[in-house]
């Protein structure tokens, strides 16, 4: 008989008639790394919520160390030493690493004061044992995302957790940091911890996991040993059909310059430094220029300033040769810019509007939709129906569906459809596939490439290396507000890109820059 740390047997959970988990069985062995694979909405989060006692399962049992348990609320889960690193870290930014680690379980000393020395001693022991080097006295706001993640791991270890759950831990990391994380996970496994690793990245599963359980649409597709499977098989299990994210694209036919950015500087809203520092580049007709980089390195600010959502400190932006640096958002829209925003709920949609109202967000004053100040609902609906058809936007009531009630993927398709339908010279897309399932990603990628082949200029900001490698004709790497590298798409490896993204090659780049200046 095998020894299981945690068993979730025949779990079923319904939300007012919709089955989120249907007879799911997940068995975590002691000292193994077990991957939980599935698309968005496959039921991973629900399953974990049940394990943590946030929800009660309608059917099924949970066993810990072979004993049936009833996890009624999160504190019970904590009692059984289950810990989790969330995708978005739960850290207090203004506290130090040490303070964050002991938060909530502070060792008490004389008169009830916190015994910092005792805490430090224990944490240092843990660091040495697991090789989790991190500066205990640095503030969270000053350290890298990778270090923040280590802090989260230390938090779990400090609480003597035996079961460690990682929720999409690699989404925010550079390739190098991902390798380090894998190493750490192997170390934890060696020390006898059981790890549950939630992800949708297949190569990571193959690299580190022992076994993998695949969920699809709330159902358990199966559990397999990673040594007996291939990436292709896993992907088919996850999606239910064969998916090919590698796009076959023609060589670009490059035309004239559409967007030119010169020495752009954008101030940071929080810190004193510049969010975007002296950035220059261009985008031409018929090419996809991708700005690669880790989230938070000035990409958002760059796009905000290009699209007119925020002000520029210095530098110039030219669209089709015209200086648009200080022009309003509306004028930019009219002179040939469209924008798929990073945050579809904040900027992309008015969620309480119907789909048809949303599809003319920029165009409602256009002649076609505006008769003497009145909205021409007939034309708006016809236009929306066209977007719905062309971009496969699925909703309950067609054009009159309230956008809020649509799924994330379809909301995104609606935005992509709206922006592409405007047929502008320049399309700026920021993370257009964030949080979407593989099918939708494939679809949106194809539509972007189609636009490029139609001779449009496309500027894509992406944090996903796969997306960068797949779509780019030219890659710009951004690090701490500066462009630190520019490559033709086939002249750079993933690893090199990773190093540039992490800023490791920055000094080299600067040296070259200075050298160039010297020659001039």
């Amino acid at each position, binding site marked *: 008989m095998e020894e299981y740390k945690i068993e979730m047997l025949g779990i079923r959970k319904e939300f007012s008639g919709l089955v989120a988990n249907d007879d799911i069985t997940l068995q975590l062995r002691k000292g193994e790394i077990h991957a939980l694979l599935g698309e968005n909405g496959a039921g991973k989060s629900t399953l974990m919520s049940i394990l943590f006692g946030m929800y009660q399962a309608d059917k099924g049992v949970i066993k810990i160390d072979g004993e049936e348990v009833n996890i009624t609320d999160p504190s019970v889960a904590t009692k059984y030493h289950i810990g989790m690193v969330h995708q978005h870290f739960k850290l207090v930014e203004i506290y130090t690493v040490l303070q964050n680690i002991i938060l909530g379980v502070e060792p008490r000393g004389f008169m009830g004061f916190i015994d910092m020395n005792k805490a430090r001693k224990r944490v240092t022991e843990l660091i040495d044992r697991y090789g989790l080097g991190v500066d205990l006295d640095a503030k969270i706001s000053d350290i890298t995302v990778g270090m923040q993640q280590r802090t989260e791991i230390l938090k779990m270890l400090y609480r003597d957790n035996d079961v460690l759950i990682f929720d999409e831990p690699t989404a925010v990391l550079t390739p190098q940091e991902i390798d380090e994380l894998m190493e750490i996970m192997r170390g934890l496994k060696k020390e006898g911890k059981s790890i549950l690793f939630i992800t949708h990245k297949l190569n990571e599963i193959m690299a580190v996991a022992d076994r993998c359980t695949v969920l699809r649409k709330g159902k358990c597709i199966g559990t397999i040993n990673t040594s007996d499977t291939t990436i292709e098989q896993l992907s088919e299990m996850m999606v239910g059909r064969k998916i090919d994210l590698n796009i076959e694209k023609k060589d670009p036919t490059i035309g004239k310059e559409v967007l030119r950015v010169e020495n752009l500087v954008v101030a940071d809203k929080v810190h004193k430094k510049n969010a975007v520092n002296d950035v220059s580049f261009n985008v031409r007709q018929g090419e996809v220029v991708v700005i690669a980089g880790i989230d938070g390195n000035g990409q958002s600010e760059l796009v905000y300033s290009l699209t007119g959502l925020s002000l520029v400190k210095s530098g110039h932006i030219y669209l089709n040769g015209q200086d648009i640096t200080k022009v309003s*958002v509306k004028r930019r829209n009219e002179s040939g810019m469209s924008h798929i925003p990073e945050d579809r709920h904040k900027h992309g949609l008015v969620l309480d509007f119907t789909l048809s109202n949303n599809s003319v967000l920029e165009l409602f004053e256009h002649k076609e939709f505006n008769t003497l100040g009145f909205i021409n609902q007939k034309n708006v609906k016809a236009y929306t129906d066209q977007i719905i058809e062309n971009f496969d936007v699925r909703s309950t009531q067609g054009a009159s569906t309230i956008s809020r009630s649509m799924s994330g993927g379809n909301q995104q398709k609606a935005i992509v459809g709206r922006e592409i339908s405007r047929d502008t010279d320049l399309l700026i897309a920021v993370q257009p596939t964030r949080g979407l399932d593989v099918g939708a990603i494939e679809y949106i990628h194809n539509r972007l490439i189609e636009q490029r082949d139609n001779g449009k200029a496309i500027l894509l900001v992406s944090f996903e290396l796969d997306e960068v490698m797949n779509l780019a004709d030219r890659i710009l790497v951004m690090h701490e507000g500066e462009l630190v590298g520019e490559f033709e798409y086939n002249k750079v490896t993933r690893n090199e890109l990773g190093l540039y993204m992490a800023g490791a090659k920055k000094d080299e780049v600067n040296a070259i820059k200075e050298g160039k200046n010297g020659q001039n």
Partner: protein
Amino acid sequence: MDKIKSFFARLIRKDVFKTLLTSFSCALVGLLIGFIILLIVSPEASLKGFKTLALGFLDVPTKYGLRLESFAKTLTRTAPLIVSGVAILVAYKAGLFNIGASGQFTMGVFAALFMALVWHLPWYLCMLGAVIFGGLYGAIVGVLKAFLNVNEVISGIMLNWIGLYFTSMIIKQNSTMWDSIKYETIPIERVSPGSLIPTLGLDKLFNDYKYITIGIFIAIIVAVFYYIVIEKTTLGYKMKATGFNKNAAKYAGMKEKLNIVIILALSGSLAGLSGALLYLTGIENWYCPTNVPSMGFDGISAAFLGGLSPLGSILSSFFITHITIGGSRLDTSFYSPEIAKVVTGVIIYLCAFVLFIKDQLNKRILKKDRELGLELLKPNDNGDNNIKEETKEEESIVPNEPSLKEEEVNK
């Protein structure tokens, strides 16, 4: 039977019907609580008192045309409330809470009275003056909000008081306006009859009740006009987009700051018009109160009870005025005069629950739909969509961990 059931099921999913249903139930519950208060204060007079309250002008004897007169009075006082309600909801549609409507109302009253009593201008110019003054006063709130990020509720409340004392200061020093013996403004009728809103013979219809004017028609026209503006025009579209999501409005190239100023100016102009509609009838004289006039606040109730629709606010304003007048007729030998205000106050405040009740109703309908296999609303073809939305909210599983979200800390 099934037919009736399915008819009702479809009906209850119509937005208009939902609004009507919730508004009526709120009004009913309000009346019920009013009755309970009457019962507690004086059980023996409660039935009669409730009748007086609920029936309003209908309880007035028909003798000598008194009932007709009371009806005319209700209409006269309904008019400014309709416009005040529209003022609130216009701003509310754009995501702004114009609690400064009372101050804008005061400015409107001031402008109308000044132009009538000092300059003896005809009524339509006085009304225009009130609209402009109220609008400018509303624009101040808008400018503060849009460009200096001052919360419109705070600046609105402060400007209410500023407006009140500013107008009192000018009016009381001006002997052409102020009757210092009666301690109120001089009746317009006496110095400039042409400044009163014309009756167009309406008074003949209502037993020579001289305060009834075409104001009620003006109010209804304004409500219908704003209904069209909000629902059908690009201006309304912009307003709603800004109100629902100002980031998206900005993203789409709308000038969201200018929109805020325009909307609060519009709202203010309506509040100002409301002032003109009340005081240019001569039904009462301005006594320079030391408290902010309640018209702007009553407008909030009218707007909400009317389901935030200009057309709804016509009905709700009539109802509110109706019970207010009923309340003022309560038998004072059993009830102190304040009781009327308490009862009407309770009813009016309950009206604000309309949105809450509607929300609950919507949730129940949604649940029913899911349970019934979604007969009326066909589900998405990929059925896991709704789960996705639901699980997303629950993504943060925090076992007993004191944690702060990043944004909160940054603040």
